[in-house]
């Protein structure tokens, strides 16, 4: 088992004919993901190493049965591409694109929520990896093996780092989900925690947060109320000075809430083991799983 993506995933990449779109679509296919289509307006009828390209998501759904979208187009086109995928009936949309205007994200989030048809992962996220089953996005899959640790993270490279440390400690993963660090993520920690809670393969959950917003605090409450599996938390940004933007639009410390210590405290208060470094996370995982 895994969450969100697996052997049934039929992926369509928006922006497949771009450099990165091609590179990662082929990597995802090499990993074993069914990459059934790509979308580039005006290039319908072409193919990318055998992957058929369509003008619209609607065609990709109709002709190839695509059920998952990966959005790789530049930020000014990304909101439109997500909305098109949803309109075409795609149920899971993974948006890798970074730098989408915040008001676009607001509009997209609220439209998808209103319609209730599709789940968005990201934007500004590395994607999802369900080791041994499917990889959608840019997560370097070769470092991760099948296993029973579910990982959910706001950060891309930090996810790889933590997953890698876990792998070196002998842990594999059910799924690794990057939810992205943007102001309006399509999917929150809570959504993914609920999925891991339901997933029979997942025995331990690692949750990587960072400063800014209150997603970690809300996740802590949810864990306390609804998650019975052990959760290990990690928060990046202890060293960030207040009021400075650290790259992710999300990573802004405002007032007393949203700081790394406040988040770590909130998680610990809800029974989550919080590691101070990626290495501590792996150690905590080891000790919890061996109990």
């Amino acid at each position: 088992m895994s969450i969100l993506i697996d052997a049934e995933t039929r992926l369509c990449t928006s922006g497949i004919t771009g450099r990165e779109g091609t590179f990662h679509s082929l990597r995802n296919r090499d990993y074993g993901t069914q990459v059934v289509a790509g979308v580039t307006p005006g290039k319908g009828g072409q193919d990318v190493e055998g992957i058929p390209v369509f003008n619209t998501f609607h065609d990709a759904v109709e002709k190839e049965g695509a059920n998952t979208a990966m959005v790789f187009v530049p930020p000014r086109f990304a909101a439109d591409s997500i909305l098109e995928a949803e309109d075409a009936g795609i149920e899971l949309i993974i948006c890798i694109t970074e730098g989408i205007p915040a008001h676009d994200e607001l509009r997209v989030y609220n439209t998808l929520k209103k319609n209730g048809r599709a789940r968005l992962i990201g934007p500004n996220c590395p994607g999802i990896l369900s080791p041994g089953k499917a990889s959608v996005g840019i997560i370097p899959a070769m470092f991760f093996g099948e296993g029973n640790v579910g990982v959910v993270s706001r950060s891309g490279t930090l996810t790889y780092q933590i997953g890698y440390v876990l792998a070196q400690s002998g842990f594999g993963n059910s799924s690794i989900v990057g939810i992205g660090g943007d102001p309006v993520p399509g999917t929150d920690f809570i959504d993914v925690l609920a999925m891991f809670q339901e997933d029979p393969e997942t025995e331990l959950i690692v949750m990587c947060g960072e400063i800014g917003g209150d997603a970690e605090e809300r996740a802590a409450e949810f864990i306390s109320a609804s998650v019975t599996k052990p959760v290990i938390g990690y928060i990046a940004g202890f060293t960030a000075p207040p009021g400075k933007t650290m790259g992710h639009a999300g990573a802004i410390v405002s007032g007393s809430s949203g700081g790394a210590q406040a988040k770590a405290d909130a998680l610990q208060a809800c029974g989550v083991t919080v590691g101070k470094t990626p290495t501590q996370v792996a150690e905590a995982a080891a000790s919890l799983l061996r109990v």
Partner: protein
Amino acid sequence: MDLLEYQGKQLFARHDVPVPAGKPARDVEDAVAAADEVGYPCAIKAQVQIGGRGKLGGIKIANDRDEAQEHARAILGMDIRGLTVHELWIEGASQIASEYYASVVFDRSAKAPLVMLSTKGGMDIEQVADEDPDAIAHLHVDPLLGFQDFHGRRLAFEAGIDDDVVRPVAAMLAKLYEVFASEEATLVEVNPLIITPEREVRALDAKVTLDGNALYRHGQNALLRDLSAEDPQEVMAAERGLTYVKLDGDIGILANGAGLSMSTLDVVAEAGGTPANFLDAGGGSRADAITAAVEVILSDAKVKAVLFNIFGGITRCDEVARGLIEAFARIQPQVPFVVRLDGTNGEEGRQLLSEARLPGVHTEVTMDDAAAKVVELALGAGG
């Protein structure tokens, strides 16, 4: 992108938000001319992207030309919480019957804009929120529907503003929301929003943050960026597509991705070091970005050692290695480097570095070891 007060007011004026007439000035002569034009009494206001300037002497009222000259001279060049005043805004002094607070902010938790109104204007609103939260009326606006007339009325009635200005204040809130939505701002704040003795509503201050990611749709706003008011190293980094934040320490840091970059700072701090900066080389760092990043990091003279912590996803470690080699060829760094490369093409990257035999470059396999090593090197250099 934070706007200066006068830029915010010019934006307001485009959306029919009433603001006092005024002129910007960059030197004393211009300031006096502006004051003459605006008329006396007028306010001479330091233009810096930080709050609380009034208490620190950054706003003064000039009753005549001599005072205008005196105040302009005093304020230009002064330091307000670390920022130097390069620019003034001279506007007609307003008479104030009441001071309110109004804002529209991007509320990440609710995933909706939050609009606030309070009669406790002119004060630190965070203090009001702490001490008397009921004094701030607030509501979320459905971004698909937009700001409705009833939102404005409800805020005005709930905030308890004077009956006779309910309509104009509600109308003002609608305009501020329009600024927020149509200019793609993440913050629009007016403190104080004043009522004059003639019962006119006016924005006496303007704090506007625009979404940098959306500037391509707002050509006029993109021109407002005031590079002179920003940290020159941060500007240099931004021009090269890097996110750089200067900190107080002596260990230069480069990583890829905001989360890993922050985590790297934390691990260095855990190891006993003090980071000199945050630098996120971005998701798909190429060789030239890495070269630029090294230049930015070393432009800070306090840096005694540099840590590269790269875990490749989109970023390919061989590109990072090439960038580092290129940077060394170009600028011959005088401080030691600790490099940790892993992830996509990690082996190729490490291989390239090992073949290049760059002077003073140490490679480490784990993030913890790399942090320990760079702290040791920095202490050695400083000691």
